[in-house]
């Protein structure tokens, strides 16, 4: 029980205070039962605000705190750590979400949003008031990781883990490692063939005793939790069980395949960017570019194929990010083979960001022409024999359509997520609207998922170029290391607990727990339920099965939830 509670209400630099009267919230709740101190902060998460709060906790001898700010997904840990630094038990801290679940949702009615914020803060105070100090449970971790997907991200991640002394198991569904890079031709910015890069990594991996590669392999079962997962995999005909501390998903992407007749796709002289790059990489004759035995003199590229489909139902709404740079790079590769080529780029916006802008400028210098089209007016493609005719309305220069004849039409296709239905069914990793894996937070926790110990990296989480993919796989490797290297993880102590005096030993909860955390023990005068803390996941699935309310989850106890409900109704009762 806390009865000297500090409450801190955050402006979030306007994100909250633009729609919620933060000062009114503070003034209203400062008289609540148990509140000893209340204050507002411009940015509660800032170092200076945290230092001030620590001082307040110490000076005023506070025994519990409530912070009304953003979603706990962002800063629960930040503030739990802050509480701990101030000498408080972190589980006597409650975070109240008045941003995502209040100010941002109710931007049209400041008064009502303020009332709601007050009610939410009251519930948070009630929760802290009824809290008890809890101590984390410690679980030993296995110093091994499972990487699913043996493309560039997975392989680079395995090497990084190996260097840090963590055994890496790489599961690849195909018969050889390398993924998309095996078959993508010459890549920017290093002018190498994709497979050469993979060969270099493979050579390095073979030297190491702490990386195992499994090909024709997949995960078929996962048990356990962070720090100690038990994973069954099949590799060819072999079945084996791996004990790992973390799982990293580097399952990659697949190139978007245009639909039949989409921008002329299906005609032999209409090919995707990926196929065109392969053609260029294999073209040995300098001075002329040959396609299907014919010399190519005019090439047209149409951009954003399978990307940025804002008007198409179930379309890919996102930008595939790598393709503008890749198409401009490819166009330069074509010029290198035949400088006399005529190359036309029909684009929506050119996004050759960062240093890849150079490719765009170089194309302009070498005579490539660019035409800007609207999504509503896509280029019209027709053909006569092997010749392709493209009619496009350039929105920058003319009202009339421009006719572009060419020998080869290249569709600049984007990236789509691999479906991984079976894998996703086993791991339950959250997937976004774009079908790629979802991280907890795009800025602050970019390679972590809501499931502790499962990380995502590379293009499994969204379109990326190679260096960006590797960057995120390095991040996943370091997150894994920070989890496993110290040898243990602290598990949330918010697990089920038996209120001994209430338990009648009726055994109605006997089959509640699929993990079998519940057993029955003899106490002095009766048999009562008992929870194994190492097994309990803290879901609370057993709670509704107890007719006596003798089971509850710490941090979500009956008295906490009921007092939260009551305090939210305070205003209504006062009226």
């Amino acid at each position, binding site marked *: 029980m806390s009865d000297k509670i500090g409450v801190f209400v955050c402006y979030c630099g306007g994100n909250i205070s633009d729609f919620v009267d933060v000062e009114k919230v503070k003034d209203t709740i400062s008289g609540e039962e148990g509140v000893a101190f209340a204050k507002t902060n411009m940015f509660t998460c800032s170092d200076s605000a945290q230092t001030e709060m620590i001082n307040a906790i110490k000076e005023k001898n506070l025994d519990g705190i409530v912070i009304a700010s953003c*979603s*706990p*997904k962002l800063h629960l840990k930040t503030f739990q750590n802050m509480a701990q630094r101030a000498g408080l038990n972190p589980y006597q801290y409650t975070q109240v*979400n008045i*941003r*995502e*679940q*209040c*100010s*941002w*949702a*109710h*931007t*049209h*009615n400041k008064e*009502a*949003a303020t*009332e*709601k914020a007050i*009610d*939410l803060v009251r*519930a948070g105070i009630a929760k802290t008031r009824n809290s008890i100090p809890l101590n984390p449970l410690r679980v030993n971790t296995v110093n091994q990781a499972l990487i699913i997907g043996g493309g560039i991200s997975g392989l680079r991640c395995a090497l990084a883990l190996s260097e840090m002394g963590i055994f890496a198991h790489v599961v690849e569904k195909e018969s050889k490692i390398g993924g998309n890079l095996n078959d993508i031709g010459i890549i920017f910015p290093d002018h190498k063939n994709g497979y050469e890069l993979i060969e270099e990594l493979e050579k390095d991996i073979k030297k190491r005793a702490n990386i195992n590669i499994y090909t024709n392999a997949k995960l078929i079962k996962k048990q356990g939790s962070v720090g100690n997962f038990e994973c069954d995999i099949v590799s060819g005909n072999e079945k084996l069980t791996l004990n790992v501390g973390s799982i990293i998903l580097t399952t990659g992407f697949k190139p978007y395949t245009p639909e039949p007749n989409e921008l002329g796709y299906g005609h032999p002289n209409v090919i995707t960017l990926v196929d065109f790059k392969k053609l260029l990489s294999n073209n040995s004759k300098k001075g002329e570019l040959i396609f299907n035995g014919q010399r190519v003199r005019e090439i047209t590229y149409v951009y954003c194929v399978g990307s940025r489909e804002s008007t198409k139902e179930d379309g890919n709404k996102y930008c595939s990010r790598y393709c503008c740079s890749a198409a401009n790079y490819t166009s330069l590769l074509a010029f290198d083979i035949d400088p006399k080529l005529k190359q036309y780029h029909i684009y929506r916006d050119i996004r050759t960001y960062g240093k890849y802008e150079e490719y765009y400028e170089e194309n302009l210098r070498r005579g490539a022409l660019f035409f800007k089209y609207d999504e509503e007016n896509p280029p019209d493609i027709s053909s006569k024999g092997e010749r392709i005719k493209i009619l496009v309305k350039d929105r920058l220069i003319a009202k009339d359509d421009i006719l572009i004849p060419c020998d080869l039409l290249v569709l600049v296709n984007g990236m789509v997520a691999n479906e991984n239905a079976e894998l996703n069914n086993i791991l*339950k990793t*959250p*997937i*976004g*609207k774009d079908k790629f894996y*979802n991280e907890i937070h795009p800025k602050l926790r970019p390679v972590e998922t*809501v*499931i502790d110990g499962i990380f995502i990296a590379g293009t499994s989480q969204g379109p990326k170029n190679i260096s960006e993919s590797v960057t995120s796989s390095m991040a996943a490797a370091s997150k894994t290391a920070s989890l496993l290297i110290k040898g243990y993880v602290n598990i949330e102590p*918010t697990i089920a607990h038996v209120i001994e005096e209430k338990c009648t030993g009726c055994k109605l909860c006997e089959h509640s727990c*699929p993990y079998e955390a519940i057993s029955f023990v003899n106490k002095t005068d009766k048999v009562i339920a008992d929870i194994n803390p190492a097994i309990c*996941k*803290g*879901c*609370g*699935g*057993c*709670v*509704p099965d107890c007719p006596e*309310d003798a089971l509850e*989850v710490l941090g*979500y106890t*009956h008295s906490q*939830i*009921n007092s*939260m*409900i*009551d305090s*939210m*109704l305070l205003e*209504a*009762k006062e009226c």
Partner: protein
Amino acid sequence: MSNPKILVFSTNNISDPGIDLAGASHMDYPESVKIITVPCSSGISPKWILNAIKGGFDGVFVAADGTDCPYLTDCTDRTAKIVEKSQELLTTNNLDPRRIKMAAICSVCAESFASHIKKFYKALSELNN
């Protein structure tokens, strides 16, 4: 004017991120919606729901984990049973069982949450008249 008060039970890993996303996307839903977050929708006690309605909430919406539940493979059935039990509790207390609503809200189901809540709000407004 009827402005039904709704209590939502959401879950840390699944439906709460979905509700967060609704806010982050500035999807408007009634301000009288208050949220209590629990680990899993299968851990909600029917008595909490009864207490909420008895205490003055017009409705309780259970934003269930559904098949995305990280803990329990039969979470949907378990949560459905809790809702059923709560409805029985309401009925025996002379309260309208339609004051409880359940829907699975996934971690990106922002639109679905806003639309469920608006529908429930409307249904409760009619119930109050």
